């Protein structure tokens, strides 16, 4: 830390700067997780709130002891023994992994293409990629329902072109989920990739060409390795939220196999089983904690690099 910075740590205003967001996040981001963890160790009950035990401090120390005795890992045993939950975790991982791979395949050429345009055009093209992200997520999924539904445009066009004889049920299928996920997350893949590709020194490519490297080889030997931080950021930025995705599979997917976000939603809203929903959330978080830590390290490293 450089001495004499404007916000030296001793001044009261500096403390306030840090304290306000810190306290907010502790209260509304971290503390709720503690409660989820606690409820995942409880049992369902026909009560309000619908779980047991409830911490009752009005009876003093005794209340806390009864409360602790009431906690158990029973819900986790239930999740582990019922294949429905395991299958929806696997399905979520499969959808997330495959669609992240598709996103990388589609997003890389777009990001690379934008980075090759002249500096005058780049901001406009980047804005065009970001703009759909500003319009509602729900609207973008709804747009695809318009296209994919039974008497929708896709079937109409394909049949007029003579490719199809009868309409295909695109909706309520895994294909529709992949289309929706790739469509919604494309900006999240393109932007971090573009950010690394744009910074790259073009003279490196010229040097490779001067040394007799073909364009293709130069790409694999020079550009691809140098763009790895962007690839990592894009992959993590897509993969992690897709695993927990709810809206896309709910509106576009079928009802035969659910993703974990849907299962959690169902346990909570339809079955009113709060402990199971909480245990599913804890398990989902355990699954994602490693990629999330990678993502955070990446972010912090980028921050330190520029500082």
């Amino acid at each position, binding site marked *: *830390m450089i001495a004499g910075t404007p*916000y030296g740590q001793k001044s009261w205003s500096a403390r306030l700067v*840090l304290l306000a967001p810190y306290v907010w996040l502790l209260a509304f981001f971290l503390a709720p997780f503690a409660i989820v963890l606690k409820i995942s160790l409880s049992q369902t009950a026909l009560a309000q709130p619908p779980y047991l035990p409830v911490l009752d401090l009005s009876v003093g120390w005794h209340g806390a002891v009864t409360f602790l005795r009431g906690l158990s890992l029973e819900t986790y045993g239930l999740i582990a023994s019922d294949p429905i939950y395991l299958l929806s975790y696997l399905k979520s991982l499969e959808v997330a992994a495959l669609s992240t791979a598709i996103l990388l395949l589609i997003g890389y050429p777009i990001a690379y293409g934008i980075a090759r345009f002249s500096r005058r055009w780049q901001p406009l093209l980047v804005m065009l990629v970001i703009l759909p992200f500003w319009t509602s997520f729900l609207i973008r999924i709804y747009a695809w329902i*318009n296209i994919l539904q039974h008497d929708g445009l896709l079937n109409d066009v394909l049949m007029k072109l003579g490719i199809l004889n009868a309409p295909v049920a695109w909706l309520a299928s895994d294909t529709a989920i992949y289309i929706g996920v790739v469509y919604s997350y494309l900006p999240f893949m393109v932007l971090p990739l573009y950010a690394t590709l744009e910074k790259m020194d073009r003279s490196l490519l010229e040097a490779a060409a001067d040394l007799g490297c073909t364009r293709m080889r130069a790409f694999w030997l020079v550009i691809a390795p140098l763009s790895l931080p962007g690839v990592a950021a894009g992959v993590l930025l897509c993969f992690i*939220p897709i695993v927990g995705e709810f*809206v896309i599979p709910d509106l576009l997917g079928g009802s035969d196999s659910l993703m974990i976000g849907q299962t959690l939603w169902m346990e909570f809203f339809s079955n009113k089983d709060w402990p199971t929903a909480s245990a599913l959330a804890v398990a*989902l978080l355990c699954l994602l904690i490693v990629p999330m830590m990678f993502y955070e390290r990446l972010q*912090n490293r980028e921050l330190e690099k520029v500082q």
Partner: protein
Amino acid sequence: MRRGPSFFNVAAVALGLAFLYLPIAILVIYSFNASRLVTVWGGWSLQWYRELFHDAGMIESAWVSIRIAALSATASTVLGTLAAVALVRMGRFRGRLLFSGMIYAPLVMPEVITGLSLLLMFVALNVDRGFWTVAIAHTTLTLCFVTVIVQSRLIGFDRSLEEAAMDLGCPPLRTFLTITLPLIVPAIAVGWMLAFSLSLDDLVIASFTTGPGATTLPIRIYSEIRLGVRPEINAVCTIMIALVATGTIAASLLAKRSAVRRERAVLAAQV
């Protein structure tokens, strides 16, 4: 030697943009369709917009959503800017790792987890759910986006201006208000707009944390979409898209104008 984009580069960008915009364009066009059927084009018409203005439930939800978005965007812009200043300018402090973790985690945290955990806390605290709980939840969600945007602006600008002010005896708070704040205002404005649109957009977290009397627009649209495609929904969506597009384009034009003005001022100062 400076090669421009190859054919392959141009094609990739063009196809990518077509993929991004075609579905939205189709949705907009069909909101003006006179026919109720999606595949049948019955000529141009504004009848779905007229029906929309008579849909009291939809208008009420839009109003709820706008109020929540304005409130939570303002709160998260204040808190997010403070967090960005703390992260960029305070170096190492006790609890920094936890702090930056709490800033970056919500960016990728699945919404079902955030929504569920906030709801369970509101229940545990015995808080009546509705307008305020959704606003708090959205502030928490959008805070980190503001932080990331403001942070990148804070990193990018010239520190010597602040140092000069401090050397001339300007107290830290005044330095921040007179030097730092005006310089990062564009980023703060963009952060506010992003927070506003994210809040306006959110379905999952709002569904968990809402209560009676606070049905937001996405919650209402979602329940309608589940019943199938309706031209009125296309009309709502078109209005939202038009608002967002106008806002974004206006903001980028403003940013460009202020950049040009700044450049001129610098040039004038050098002469």
